[in-house]
């Protein structure tokens, strides 16, 4: 009964994965068989490809930001919701957190592309309205600013799924533990720092892994907002891989980028598993 599953996995998962690893060592174009060139693709990536190096820097920047926003901010919001005692408003906020999940991601990205528009976008309109003409920018068209515009989209950056997962963790803490903590005088900040946070490390760890994997690979926002431009200033590895494979047909080289991204996620996950220990009660 596992045969259909395995058949699908073999054809559409294992085969492409192995083929990706293998083809990363080829000088491989769309129609041709290609020549085996060993590790030359990787050497070229790290020594002779400024755009790739820049894309790695952008990736690091974005991933760190996503960690702050998705894990840090979400923890804050989850704790806020958890501390609300009025049941109805608590339920309302919990329900509201699902909003960014059910609005299709592309709609939010496109709305923000519009918000950033230099001539008619609301962001510049607001800045002019409050007398800050000097602050207006062509947000997505200026090389120095575009990556930050991509980064700060979706203000106020709440990730509903993270909040719900963290809330679940907070709600699962047995009341007895909180009670005995309160009796020992751990209230407010101390309760958070010494009781609640240690007990939701499991959830936080999961979110960190997921966010890193996502941050390293995500490029649909860049794809839809800037296509990596202006002059490659918002390039990320995924976008660069896409560009190499489907615009200039260097598929072996693109596979090599894919392998590098795979290795980065692998190392990050292993480090995270090893060095952040979760606590059980």
């Amino acid at each position: 009964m596992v045969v259909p599953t395995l058949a699908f996995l073999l054809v559409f998962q294992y085969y492409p994965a192995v083929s990706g690893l293998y083809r990363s060592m080829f000088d491989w174009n769309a129609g041709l068989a290609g020549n085996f060139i060993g590790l030359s693709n990787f050497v070229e990536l790290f020594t002779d490809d400024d755009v790739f190096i820049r894309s790695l820097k952008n990736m690091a920047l974005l991933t760190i930001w996503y960690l702050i926003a998705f894990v840090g901010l979400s923890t804050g919001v989850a704790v806020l919701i958890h501390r609300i005692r009025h049941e109805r408003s608590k339920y309302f906020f919990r329900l509201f957190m699902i909003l960014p999940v059910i609005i299709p991601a592309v709609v939010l990205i496109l709305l923000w592309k519009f918000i950033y528009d230099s001539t008619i976008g609301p962001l510049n309109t607001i800045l002019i309205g409050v007398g800050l003409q000097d602050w207006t920018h062509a947000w997505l068209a200026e090389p120095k600013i575009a990556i930050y515009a991509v980064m700060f989209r979706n203000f106020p950056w709440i990730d509903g799924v993270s909040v719900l997962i963290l809330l679940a963790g907070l709600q699962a803490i047995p009341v007895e533990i909180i009670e005995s903590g309160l009796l020992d005088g751990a209230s407010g900040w101390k309760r958070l720092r010494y009781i609640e946070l240690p007990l939701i490390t499991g959830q936080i760890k999961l979110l960190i892994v997921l966010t890193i994997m996502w941050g390293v690979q995500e490029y649909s926002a860049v794809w839809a907002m800037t296509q990596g431009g202006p002059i490659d200033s918002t390039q990320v590895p995924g976008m660069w891989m896409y560009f190499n494979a489907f615009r200039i047909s260097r598929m072996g080289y693109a596979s090599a980028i894919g392998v590098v991204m795979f290795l980065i996620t692998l190392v990050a996950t292993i480090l995270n598993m090893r060095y952040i220990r979760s606590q059980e009660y």
Partner: protein
Amino acid sequence: MERRSESLTAIAGGPARSQTRGLHRGDGWRTLALGILCALMIAPLIMAVIISLKSPSQFTRVPFMPTWPLRWENYEFAVQIISQFLLNSIITSGATVIGVLLLSSLAAYSFAQIPFPGRTLVFYAVLALMMVPASLTLVPSFVLIRDLRLINTHWSLILPWIAGGQIIGILILRAFFESLPGEMFDACRIDGASDWQIYWHVALPLTRSMLGVVAVLNILGTWNNLIWPTLTLPERKMWPLTPGLYSYMEQYYTSYGRVMAGLLLGSIPLVLLFIFTSRLFVEGLTSGAIKT
């Protein structure tokens, strides 16, 4: 002392008494902070609603405040363009979710309840795929689809999506099937039921709510896929909603009213899906479905 015990019961989830009391001490600023956050979250959507009801000349005069008359014809225009994309999305995401539910429940049931040689090994081999990112397989998958001559068919989306989507499904469902008592299945076997019969008549009906969680997660995943369809489907009229909305915005960028109407219409199906499954989904996320 009394105050403290009251705060304890409130933390415990609040018995009926605390519900009738209205706002509690400390709730005020928390509600305010969260309220502002929620308002900011919804602001771009309100902007979209306002703009979607404007003609171009109304937009030039007053861009961000409501103007009358409301131009509902923007929506009529958007419907004509969006509906084809929506149909494609329903076909591809629908076929995918059916495939994923069938395959992952079958596999999860066997992993949980049927001992076969190498079972653990095979299960780990499936799990290991969780670590293989889409970026590694993107280029080879595209070449594979091309070699299978599936370019410009909806199969180019459905087949790889089924393959990828079933992994998380297997994970969630296996945990559930393992929690069912093995004696129950043994009893069925003694009564002469085959594994297929047990799967179809006993295991599947018991797992309906978990199937729902898997289905919603899977639909969310495929529905939002932006880039893969643009690669395998050269013809725009084959595109699902997500890339469709992107191309729609590119094409009509300067008729802002029409663009916003299209984006809002495009959001409706997922909102509907959520309304019908919200309890399931929130429960699934906040209960045992996703655990570390």
